[in-house]
């Protein structure tokens, strides 16, 4: 089981701030691909530039996933 969080434009597009996923794939990239395959809104949300974090650290497609991980997906940041 992992926790997945969506932020900002992604969250608005997906209509949800997050979910739990029981049997995640081995890597972050595979997880992103499986989410993008869910349908139009998902494909669109994951079609642009999406940043990814695992356990609140920036990560990339190759980052492995483990039980209990917190995954975040979000658009390029615009703070400051």
């Amino acid at each position, binding site marked *: 089981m992992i926790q997945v*969080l969506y932020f*900002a434009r992604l969250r*608005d597009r997906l209509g949800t701030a997050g979910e739990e996923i029981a049997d995640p794939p081995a890597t972050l990239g595979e997880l992103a691909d499986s989410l993008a395959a869910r349908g139009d809104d998902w494909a669109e949300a994951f079609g642009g530039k999406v940043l990814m974090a695992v356990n*609140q650290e*920036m990560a990339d497609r190759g980052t492995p996933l483990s039980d209990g991980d917190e995954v975040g997906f979000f*658009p*390029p940041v615009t*703070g400051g």
Partner: protein
Amino acid sequence: MKVRISVQTAPFDLAEEMSRLTGGDVGIGGVASFVGLVRARNRVGEREAEISTLTLEHYPGMTEKALGRIVDTARERWPLQGVTVIHRVGELQLGDPIVLVLTASAHRRAAFESCEFIMDILKTEAPFWKKERLPDGSERWVDARESDGAAAARWLTSP
């Protein structure tokens, strides 16, 4: 070495942050700072009213970690005696302060460079997002700017 990092809805008090940073350390020769403000997006045309409010969202927990990591990198790179980073979240109005970075060092060059470094990296790595509300009530997420990516990238190659 004093480090203070805060993500908060409340405004910050610049003078208080300055004295908190410098108080008691007579080795500090200078403090550089940057205050980012909510500005009208574009001064052409109806210049006073192009944004009515700006809302800052963030990724709680990760934000503090990301800021901490940026500050640690700055401390490794420059001889600093103190760093303060305060970033506001929530709804802000035109002219409101958004972010404060203070860097204290014996030498002004280190203070200036580290302050600019922290701002540049924060702009591309700290998980904050701005949403604008326009006078007609519509809302839109602010797009990331390529110039911010370029500003951050130049620190990879600088001496």
